[in-house]
C-alpha cells in the first residue's frame, strides 16, 4: 500500500512483449496538479506506459496506484470510471458522427446508471440530461477552440481539428488525471502554441496532466516535471532545466 500525496504512483512496472522489454522496472511518481512530461525516443515505451496505466495492457509485473488506490488489477472501464481520461496518438475519433456527439459519447459514465434502466427511464420521459450533456459538450468544444464545429461531420475534420476534438472529449468528463499522447503531432508551430495554451488551461482547472511528446521544446516549456525514458526505464527525472543538463542523459543520447 502506498500513502503519499501523489496522484499516480508506479512501482517496479514491467511490460514484456515476448523477449522485448517495453517497460522495465519503471518507478514513477506524478505529483498532484502538475503537468508532467514523458520524453524519449520512438520505441522507448511511452505509449506502452499509457496503455498499461489505463488498463488496455496488463503489466507483466509491478504496481500502479491512483490516488492511493491500487489499479493495476482493474480493467479499462473501471480505471476510466475512477477519473482518468486519455487521448490516442492515432487520432481516434468516431467518423460516423457529428462533432458534438463525439464529445457526448465520451460522457458515457456521466450520471452513471445501468444502461438498460437508463434506456427505459429516458424513453418515456423527456430528459433534461441530454440537454445538459449537450451544453457541457458545447462548453468543452469552446474550451479547445472548436466552437462553431458542433454540427460538422467528424469525417470532414482536418488532422489538427481531430486532435482538438480528442482534447475536448478528454476534458468533458471532468477527470482527475488526463493523459495526452502526442497532443501536438503533425502540427505547425502556431498550432502547437494553441495546444500548449489549452493544456495550461486544463491544468489551471486543477487537473493533473501527463504529456507524452517527442517535441522536446514543447515539453520543456509546458511541464513542471519531466521524466526521460528509454528501454522502458527511467533515464532522468526532474524540473525541465535539471533534465536538460543531466550529464547521464547527454551521455545516453549523444555518446559523449
Amino acid at each position: 500500500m502506498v500513502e503519499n500525496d501523489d496522484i499516480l504512483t508506479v512501482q517496479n512496472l514491467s511490460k514484456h512483449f515476448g523477449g522485448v522489454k517495453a517497460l522495465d522496472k519503471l518507478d514513477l511518481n506524478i505529483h498532484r496538479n502538475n503537468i508532467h512530461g514523458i520524453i524519449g525516443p520512438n520505441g522507448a515505451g511511452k505509449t506502452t506506459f499509457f496503455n498499461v496505466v489505463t488498463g488496455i495492457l496488463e503489466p507483466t509485473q509491478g504496481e500502479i496506484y491512483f490516488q492511493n488506490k491500487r489499479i493495476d488489477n482493474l480493467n479499462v472501464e473501471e480505471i476510466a470510471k475512477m477519473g482518468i481520461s486519455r487521448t490516442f496518438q492515432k487520432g481516434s475519433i468516431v467518423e460516423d458522427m457529428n462533432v458534438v456527439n463525439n464529445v457526448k459519447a465520451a460522457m458515457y459514465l456521466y450520471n452513471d446508471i445501468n444502461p438498460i434502466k437508463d434506456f427505459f427511464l429516458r424513453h418515456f420521459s423527456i430528459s433534461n440530461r441530454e440537454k445538459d450533456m449537450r451544453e457541457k459538450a458545447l462548453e468543452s468544444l469552446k474550451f479547445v477552440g472548436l466552437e462553431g464545429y458542433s454540427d460538422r461531420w467528424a469525417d470532414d475534420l482536418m488532422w489538427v481539428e481531430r486532435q482538438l476534438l480528442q482534447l475536448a472529449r478528454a476534458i468533458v468528463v471532468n477527470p482527475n488525471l488526463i493523459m495526452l499522447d502526442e497532443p501536438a503531432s503533425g502540427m505547425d508551430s502556431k498550432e502547437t502554441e494553441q495546444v500548449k495554451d489549452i493544456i495550461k488551461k486544463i491544468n489551471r482547472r486543477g487537473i493533473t496532466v501527463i504529456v507524452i511528446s517527442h517535441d522536446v521544446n514543447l515539453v520543456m516549456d509546458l511541464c513542471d516535471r519531466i521524466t526521460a525514458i528509454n528501454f522502458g526505464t527511467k533515464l532522468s527525472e526532474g524540473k525541465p532545466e535539471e533534465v536538460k543538463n543531466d550529464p547521464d542523459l547527454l551521455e545516453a543520447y549523444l555518446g559523449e
Partner: protein
Amino acid sequence: MNNNETTFLNMNNVNVFYDSIQALKNVSLEVAKGEFVVLIGANGAGKSTLLKSILNIQAPKGSINFKGKELTKLNTDKIVANGISIIPEGHLIFNSMSVLENLQLGAYHGKKNEQSIENILEYFPILRERKEQTAGTLSGGEQQMLSIGRGLLSDPELILVDEPSLGLAPKIVNDIFNILVKLNNIGYTILLSEQNAKKSLEIADRAYVLETGNIVMEGKADDLLNNEEIKDAYFGGNI
C-alpha cells in the same frame, strides 16, 4: 539522362501526405555514389518518412530518380530489386523465424547462394552462433546486426539506415556506427537518418537537416558540426 555521380539518387520536390497531414514538404535531395549522407532532425521531423518515400512504402508525390530510373511508380519489391535496401527503425525482423531464415528472406532479390549468406555470417560472427535460434529471442543489438546483415543480402548499392541507435546502449551504438563506416569504405552508398546529430555528423560526408517536413539546411558534415545554430538546436537539449 547520363549516369554521372549526381544522378545516383535524386529527389525532386517530393511531398508525402498521411491522410490530411503533410509529412514532407517539397523535399529535394541528392546522394552521389559512394557517399555517406546523414539526415538529422528531431523525432517527427520527417526523416523516416523520407526514407520510406524512397522505397514507396509511403507513397510520394514528386520525382525520385535512382540511376536514371523513376522510383515513384515502382512497387517496393521492384525498388529493392533495383539495388536499394532499408535497415528499418526498431530493427524489424521476423521474430518467429530463425536467424538463417531471416537472412534467406533478405536475399530474395540477391544472389541466392550459400556463399553470400556465409559472407554475412563471417562478418557478424554472433549471428553464426545463433544461426538456428529464433530471431525474436536475440538481444536488441543482435537483432540490429541481423537487420543490417539481411539488408546487405539483396545486393544493394544504396542502403537506407533508419535510426539505428534507437533503443540500444551507447556501446552497441558505437559498434553499429563503426559497421556503417566500414560498409561505406568498401563501396556501399549510405543514407542514414539519425537523431544523434553529433555522432552521425562525425562519420558522414554530407548532411541534410530536416524540420517539420522541410529541409532547412544542407552542407558538408564538418561545416555543420561547427555550425552554432546546429549546436544550439541539436546538441543542447534535443532528445
